[in-house]
């Protein structure tokens, strides 16, 4: 498959690098595999010196509950099973799933919270590994959104608009900043299915689409199959040497057309065939884990051995970060705990806790965390009141757009801090509200982009990721 006699893996094997020198190997890998400078950036971008060069977005699809993760609400212990006061709810709209409920009994978290790290960050017992990374985390407890159902809410997070057709965050960033890598797409997407809910919420291509931007900026899905990128493998009966000969013939013929017609698209096409050929070795090299030392694999937990799991995707995210892929998007499905929350959410948390923590630690030990921005979170929060029957053992929570928690880490973000606060019910934000579009503004800021100045004309207005309203960079959380 690989046409070159010596790829990075064999190089590493031959050079006998010790397992302790991963950081060095990583640097070697970056310099050998990635172009040092960005290509294809818009003129004038970045607008100012960036703190982060790349993003890993760990999207928790279905909306994890803040009450069992990062928003510690001790008063709920005494309020357990009491009715949510109207003074708190204030006529907030509810989904059609609980709008008809006769009663809205408060459900406390079944899981205990403790403080972690130098900043005393409250984290629930469901996330023991992530808790150990508390000094690198900035937990935002005051996120809020406008959507109340999954489809518009996820679309809002990923594209800045609830409605389809806008470019996704990764597409914007690839469009604005260009690629740092000559052999891989600049925006890659990986999907995994959680164990907490059998039929998770589906995802949609539009979440990594390019909208009105040229489609080369759309996310490319990296799949857990034998063909990680669509159509990557030569068809059966066409071995590499035949393929190389075909490409040489093709290039010769296309070159003749170019000389006759002077159409620059022909020159581009010639280049794209060569890039495709390089991807055919770069992608398998990316997916092949034989060069990962045992102790690194162990960091990510046993599931890392299974392709398609969140753990495997986290490890691949690190490998993509090493290769300077600009925007690495993970989706983990199954966080929609309308019922049986304690059981289902424990499973979901177990899926992601160790691998997420490992990814942060692994990037850090390779010196990559400083210029990699990590985001972890879902599309909205969950209600403090119980959906369905509340017992001491179990309960469910409906969708709650008014307040929820996410965390960020790495490039440009202060570690060991908690930002924003909600009331005793975790229902309304009382301090430091962060709108979804504020988050977009902040992410772009970390990458050296002024969110008001990255625009394209669309349907009669200057479209931007951070929407049409005035939005702000959350300066308080910046390093």
């Amino acid at each position, binding site marked *: 498959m690989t046409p070159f006699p010596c790829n990075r893996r064999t190089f590493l094997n031959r050079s006998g690098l010790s397992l302790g020198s991963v950081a060095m190997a990583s640097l070697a890998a970056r310099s050998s595999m990635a172009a040092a400078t960005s290509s294809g950036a818009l003129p004038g971008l970045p607008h100012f010196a960036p703190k982060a060069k790349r993003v890993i977005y760990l999207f928790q699809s279905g909306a994890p509950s803040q009450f069992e993760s990062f928003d510690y609400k001790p008063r709920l212990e005494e309020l357990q099973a009491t009715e949510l006061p109207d003074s708190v709810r204030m006529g907030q709209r509810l989904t059609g799933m609980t709008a008809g409920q006769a009663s809205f009994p408060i459900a406390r978290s079944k899981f205990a919270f403790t403080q972690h790290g130098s900043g005393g960050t409250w984290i629930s017992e469901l996330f023991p590994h992530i808790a150990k990374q508390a000094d690198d985390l900035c937990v935002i407890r005051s996120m809020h959104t406008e959507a109340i159902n999954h489809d518009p809410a996820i679309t809002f997070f990923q594209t800045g608009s609830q409605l389809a057709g806008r470019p996704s965050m990764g597409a914007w960033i690839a469009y604005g900043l260009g690629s740092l890598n000559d052999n891989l797409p600049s925006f890659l997407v990986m999907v995994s299915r959680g164990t907490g809910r059998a039929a998770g919420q589906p995802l949609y291509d539009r979440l990594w689409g390019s909208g009105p931007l040229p489609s080369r900026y759309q996310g490319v899905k990296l799949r857990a199959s034998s063909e990680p990128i669509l159509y990557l493998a030569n068809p059966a009966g066409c071995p590499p040497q035949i393929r190389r000969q075909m490409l040489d013939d093709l290039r010769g013929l296309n070159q003749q057309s170019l000389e006759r017609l002077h159409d620059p698209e022909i020159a581009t096409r010639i280049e794209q065939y060569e890039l*495709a050929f390089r991807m055919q070795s770069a992608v398998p090299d990316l997916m092949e884990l034989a060069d990962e030392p045992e102790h690194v694999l162990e960091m990510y937990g046993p599931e890392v051995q299974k392709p398609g799991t969140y753990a495997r995707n986290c490890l691949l995210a690190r490998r993509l970060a090493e290769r300077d892929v600009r925007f690495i998007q993970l989706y983990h499905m199954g966080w929609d705990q309308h019922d049986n929350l304690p059981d289902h959410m424990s499973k979901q948390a177990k899926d992601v806790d160790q691998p997420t923590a490992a990814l942060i630690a692994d990037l850090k030990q390779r010196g990559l965390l400083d210029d990699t921005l990590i985001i972890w979170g879902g599309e909205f929060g969950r209600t403090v009141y119980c959906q369905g029957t509340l017992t001491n053992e179990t309960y469910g929570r409906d969708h709650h757009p008014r307040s929820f928690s996410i965390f960020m880490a790495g490039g440009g973000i202060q570690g060991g801090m908690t930002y924003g606060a909600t009331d005793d019910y975790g229902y309304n934000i009382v301090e430091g509200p962060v709108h979804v579009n504020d988050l977009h503004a902040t992410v772009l800021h970390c990458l050296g982009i002024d969110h008001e100045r990255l625009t394209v004309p669309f349907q009669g207005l200057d479209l931007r990721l951070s929407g049409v309203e005035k939005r702000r960079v959350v300066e308080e959380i910046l390093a």
Partner: protein
Amino acid sequence: MTRRWRLLAAVLLVVSGMQAGGVRASESEVPPTVAEPVDFAREVLPILAANCFACHGPDEAERAADLRLDTRDGATEHVIVPGDADRSELIARITSADDELRMPPPETERQLSSEEVDVLRRWIGEGAAWARHWAFVPPVLPEVPACVDESWPQSAIDHFVLARLEREGLQPSAPASRTAWLRRVSFDLTGLPPTPEEVRAFTADASRDAFEKQVDRLLASPRYGERMAADWLDIARFADTNGYQNDFNRSMWPWRDWVIQAFNANMPADQFLVEQLAGDLLPEPTQDQLIATGFNRNHRMVTEGGSIDEEWRVENVVDRVETTATAFLGLTMGCARCHDHKYDPVSRRDFYQFYAFFNNVDEQGVYNERRGNVPPMIEVPTADERQRLAEADTALAEAKQRLADAQVDLAATFAGEPPASEAPAARLRALRDRLLVAKIEGEMPANAAASAVAPEEPAWVASPVGEGVDLVGREASHVDLGQLITPQADDPLSWTLWARLDADGALVSKMDDGAGYRGFDTIVLGDKRLKVHLVAAWPSDAIAVTTKVAVPREQWFHLAVSYDGSRTAAGVKIWLDGVALETNLEQDSLKGEINTAEPLRLGRRSSGLFLDGSLAAVAFFDAALTDDTVRQLRMADLRRQVPDLTVAIDAIPEATRAYLQREAAGGLRLEVERLQKERDQLAGSVQTAMVMRDRSDVRPTYMLHRGQYDQPEESEPLSPQVPETLGTLGEGDSKNRLDLARWLIEPEHPLTARVVANRLWKQFFGRGIVATLDNFGVQGDSPSHPELLDWLAVRLVQSGWDMKALQREIVLSATYRQSAATSESVRERDPENRLLARGPRRRLSAEMIRDNALAVSGLLVERLGGPSVKPYQPAGLWDDLAGGANGGPYVLAEGDDLYRRSLYTFRKRTVSHPTLATFDAPSWEICQAKRGTTNTPLQSLALLNDTTYAEAAAHLAVRMQGDEEGDGDLAEQIGRGFLLTTSRLPEVAEQTSLTRGYGHYLDYYREHPDDVTALLSHGGSPIPADQHTPELAALTAVAAVLLNLDETVSR
């Protein structure tokens, strides 16, 4: 870029004379000379719009310093002194060096170029003439300009183009070769390449109208409608799924087929518009006209549980507004949803008045977890369905007639039965001895137990077998038979009765509900099925048997239940009108005893199940029944009402007669029921189409604050109306979509015909005369050839909106016939080919790339229309995202459906088909007037490795080999392949290169027979094994190279 180019053009305007080879007078500095007055609409307005209107435009809410520059009054009130640029504050401000004063303000990052300042300065100097934006002024037929070179133009189109070129000092390119033109026009009109035979015929055709004949052939091809539909489907956001969350399937292909047929029939463009916008409001609309309105139902649809209905209904309406505005007005109205348009004179009020046209559809916003098409919709049976429905209707009508004709023949009915007087005695003697009778025949039977009394005196009703009791569904309304019988679980036990039911309840019981339901009963369930219990302790120690079919309501029937004492459920049998019923055995575990002190009751159980219905002739037997005995008992009951078989049927008591008549028709009635059921099922599965249908009571329309569904500004109800700046529909009655449609096609309408003509132009030249196909507003691109656009628009209207005629004129023009080859200097001068100094060359669309491969390899199946199909797609794509749970997995098509045109490929909105999406096909979530064209490595991978192309390469190789003796010559084979894929024969260098490659491939495949077989076995039509030669494999590799040529995927 656009603006810079326009200014360069102005600079070159003064140069006269012509020079061969394109660029004239090079880029040498020519002093600008004032030639013509500044054109406000084309030169000034775009500058003001781009730089000033955001704060000083139509949007009242955003207007700064109370200054508006979008009207002459506003502009000349303070900042412009007509005729005196130096005294105009506007010029001072835009040229100020002071950041505090300069406009636009520094934070906008906009600054006017010196050329732009110059335009404004000259314009003010000339008196600051004002004009409306060009696109809002109705087009008039412009004079066809004269050209220096009168020999080149073939049509008026060419005069417009050449006049412009001559002004620019450019020359048109030489004509393309005949083959290049034929390839170009074949793709542009049919989406498919010309066949080698068509190429040969055309190149050999010396007649004067050779070109015209080709165009007429292509316009008449059914493939034309398919190709035209492809573009329209993007605008109409047509897809096969709902697009949100679960993304359930819908079935709107009847609308898609309507579009294809409309194009093929050359439906006039105005009619095409009216039927899609308002076909349902036409007088007595045809089915096709209703289907056409699906245009405004193609939008996405929410089915996500818990979604708020009004929120998404509003989104449906907004989508219709935006789509209609883009499709027919070439305007972006969406921004006016929240605020007055910043650039174009479309106010919020305009938006919501336009919205009112589409706000009255009889629809929901959320169809909770519902699959398939949703109302309003109509049935549109396919030809096959129509025929099957007609057949079912005929069969049903015939069966009903036979039923109506059925007569009671008493002799036949009671054939073989003994006379009434003898009936029980003769045939049931053995049984009679064990008969435990509680016959209810007018009075309580003398031999019934003394306690057999009804606590509430029952009413008596006529039954087919004499009088029966009528029970009314209350506790007191039942018959208590005391301890008439006391059966044990090991004893056989049977009962027969006549019943007429109004509701469910217990027919017979001797059961203690409070003691684990010990006892036995026969009850009618809510779903009208019968259930028989024999219970020691429910449910662990019990028999329960349920019939599979329901018993009738509101008509008398005979029921028999028999238990054989075997303690098995199989020992329970039930007969309805003498016919044994199939049963489900639900409990089969009877071990204990069933006796209880509760009385034997008719019409209730110990604690409920009160029967609403009538009972007659109830009898109990301490024996099991057989088919024969049941039949005899039933006949004996009836026979007692018919003492003499010779009596006229009319003389028999009415209830009995009615029963006998139904009985006589029994088989016929079942037949009618069966046929009715079949017919209903067929009708239920018939193809439907979602259509527009308005509610009879008008849903009020209000402006929505910031566009929010839950913030209507109810103080001011709005009526449907068109944007003020474009006209008005007049006073009087409330206007509807039909009024809107008719307004759009008025000959004087400034936009509609221009928008249509512009889109047609883009179809052939790759870009519109207005490049922003979806935006003819102030912010849109200025037309490259404004007079030509108006000429095309007016011609279109004058021709009766004849699209084929206009297309014919375009493709026969000298402009279109030019060669695409050009020098680098000309290309540099006009990279986008705005001026049309060369022929249009561009990559094929996503659909065409695949269709071309299918066509040249001979795999294409040219079947028009029908449900969408599922050609090759990498496994698991749907499952990755949705678990395959909602639409089910992607089931690969079989046979012909693998090779249908890409127009018919199933369009799942949330998971795009990669064969199309890779080549810039949209996801059809929203209206899209124009696709991008990208050039990516993923496209290279797809063309090299997708099964579609691997299979096509092998089949192309077979075609290249030829099937006759003497075709074996390699040069000929390669030439044949080259002609198929590029529509021309290879040059020597190309031939040499491919021949050399072939040699390499052949060397390899001679050594690797397994790879030969593998290479020739891709897809659903593998090459037969006897053709698996190294030569064919090598030729397949050559074919794959040919399919990947830039020239193959371009036209």
